């Protein structure tokens, strides 16, 4: 057998494997710790997990089919509904992909606005993750803190484009909205506001004995497993792989700002927590530079209103808060995309769940689902 056999998930419809000590437990789809509608079937020996099977698709809306029946511009708002806690990143990936297809580049000011909004969104996404993840493990307070602070990000979004979550902030060719008066000041004020708050989250959790015991050594995924399973984002970096698409293949204006890629070594739940916290600090650092360097000029490139990309196909991906978010677009020369394939980070990362929880306890499954930072809207599309 190939080494891949160890990644094979269980076929739980085959009930013959059960001996007297084993049982099958259904978790979800309506379970608070599954962050949406994820159903996990667990095969257990007492409290020990022997294997899992994920049942997904409850939120399937056929986004890729819809794309084939809309024009390139009309499809733009739909992508916000996939990863709805990081809508800006979705929009950024889609707009950049179509721009690549029509060979247009957004003007420098738009590139920096994109970086600012995408990083604010990364902060918002990580704060949702931290709050809910800590809540799953039993610490209630961080949820209140993070949602309070995330609110300020959403206020900036609302002032910028009128929407809080599904922002549709970008258009193909740049940003349709100019930054409002005081935008830069708001962002800088938020940076100053947030930095002590991150310290506060850390003072609640990093040294907390319960937190450490619940997360250290739990859900270990090493670098080789990450690569084999296609896992990207903070999960990969926590396993010691210094890889971030913002550095590896820079897009927008990420090549003009300085930041580090935080990594950790053990690849356990605690390390992923540390990596994401460090990423938040790096985001603040990027925000300060981007605001400082924000050039003047137009925010939209010249894009024909009737968009007919030449025949061809491209793949473009960005570093979304959860990992590599890619779009594979096939154009047949008409106004509608012939095929839009979304490569969702949550979907691929969720595949690692089985590997991570084998041999662990049921309570760890909850911790691992939280640490993978999945959004079911993106898993199911």
């Amino acid at each position, binding site marked *: 057998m*190939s080494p*891949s*056999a160890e*990644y*094979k*998930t269980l*076929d739980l419809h085959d009930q013959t494997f059960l001996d007297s000590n084993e049982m099958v437990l259904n978790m979800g789809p309506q379970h608070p710790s599954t962050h949406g509608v994820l159903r996990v079937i667990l095969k257990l020996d007492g409290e020990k997990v022997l294997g899992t099977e994920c049942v*997904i*698709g409850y939120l*399937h809306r*056929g986004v*890729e*089919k*819809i794309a*084939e*029946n809309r024009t390139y511009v009309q499809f733009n708002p739909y992508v916000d509904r996939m990863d709805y806690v990081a809508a800006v990143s979705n929009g950024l990936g889609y707009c950049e992909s179509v721009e*690549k*297809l*029509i*060979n*247009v580049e957004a003007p420098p000011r738009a590139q920096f606005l994109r970086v600012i909004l995408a990083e604010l969104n990364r902060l918002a996404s990580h704060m949702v993750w931290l709050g809910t993840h800590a809540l799953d493990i039993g610490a209630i307070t961080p949820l209140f803190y993070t949602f309070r602070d995330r609110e300020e990000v959403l206020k900036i979004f609302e002032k910028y484009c009128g929407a809080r979550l599904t922002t549709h902030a970008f258009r193909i060719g740049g940003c349709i909205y100019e930054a409002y008066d005081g935008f830069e000041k708001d962002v800088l004020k938020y940076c100053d506001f947030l930095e002590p708050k991150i310290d506060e989250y850390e003072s609640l959790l990093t040294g907390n004995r319960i937190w450490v015991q619940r997360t250290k050594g739990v859900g270990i995924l090493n670098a080789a497993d990450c*690569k*084999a*399973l*296609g*896992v990207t984002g903070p999960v990969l970096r926590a396993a010691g*792989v210094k*890889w971030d698409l913002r550095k*590896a*293949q820079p897009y927008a204006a990420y090549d003009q700002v300085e930041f580090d890629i935080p990594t950790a070594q053990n690849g356990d739940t605690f390390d992923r927590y540390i990596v994401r916290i460090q990423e938040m600090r790096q985001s603040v650092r990027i925000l300060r530079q981007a605001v400082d360097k924000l050039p003047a000029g137009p925010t939209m*490139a*010249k894009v*024909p*209103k*009737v*968009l*007919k*990309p*030449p*025949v*061809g*196909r*491209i*793949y473009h*991906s960005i570093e979304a808060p959860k990992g*590599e978010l*890619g779009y*594979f677009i*096939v*154009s047949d*020369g*008409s106004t509608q995309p*012939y095929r839009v*394939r979304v*490569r969702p980070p949550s*979907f*691929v990362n969720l*595949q690692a769940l089985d590997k991570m929880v084998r041999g662990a306890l049921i309570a760890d499954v909850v911790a691992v689902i939280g640490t993978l930072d999945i959004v079911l809207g993106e898993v*199911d*599309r």
Partner: protein
Amino acid sequence: MPDEKSELDKSPQQANNGLAGDPDKAPEKTVNAAPATAASPTPPPPPVAPKPAPAAAKPAAPAAPPKPAPIAWESPLVASLKQQYGSGIREAAIYLKDKYLVVDKSIVFDVLTRMRDDETFDYCVDVTAVHWPKREEQFDVVYILYSFAKNERVRIETMIKDGEKVRSAFSLWPTADWLEREVFDMYGIEFTGHPGLKRILLPEGWTGYPLRKDYGIRQQDQAWIKANIGIESGQ
């Protein structure tokens, strides 16, 4: 600036009106007349519509992007693959910085194996498909690979007929498990050697493959909905 844009917007409609004759807008008609006459036998002119428009709007603007075309991809990797497989490598090109190979279905697994083992493409980014109902080989199966060592991405495509099977890439990259299940779910393409090929996003027992072009956007498996949800239709 806004005026120019609205002109851009109008140009396709005006091209139609041009035949009826609209004497009010003589200067613009000279611009639009060319596409109008060219469009009458309806060839597929994707670049024609956007191309003359920016030129008419503002000649000094750096826009008017040159029409991109695939250029031949030449590298030691491609050379050695061509030497080994000959005409099995149907195309090796770069389009808008995307490197891709189109290979024959008989050797696709070998090429993938080689990419992983010899060329350090250790991360399978995506497996997907595209449906072309009018072609004899109806489906493109697309693999997107990435090499951490080289920081390079390559797309490998192959074409298969309806009903033909592809060897699963699960033994090379376990991540292909769910990705191939999704392709099976949406296109009905079967992968041999897959550890558990079944639907993933749609419920088991659903009939039809939604991302095929002949599957309508409002189409549903009415019988399944009636039996499992107990309503006439979801619409």
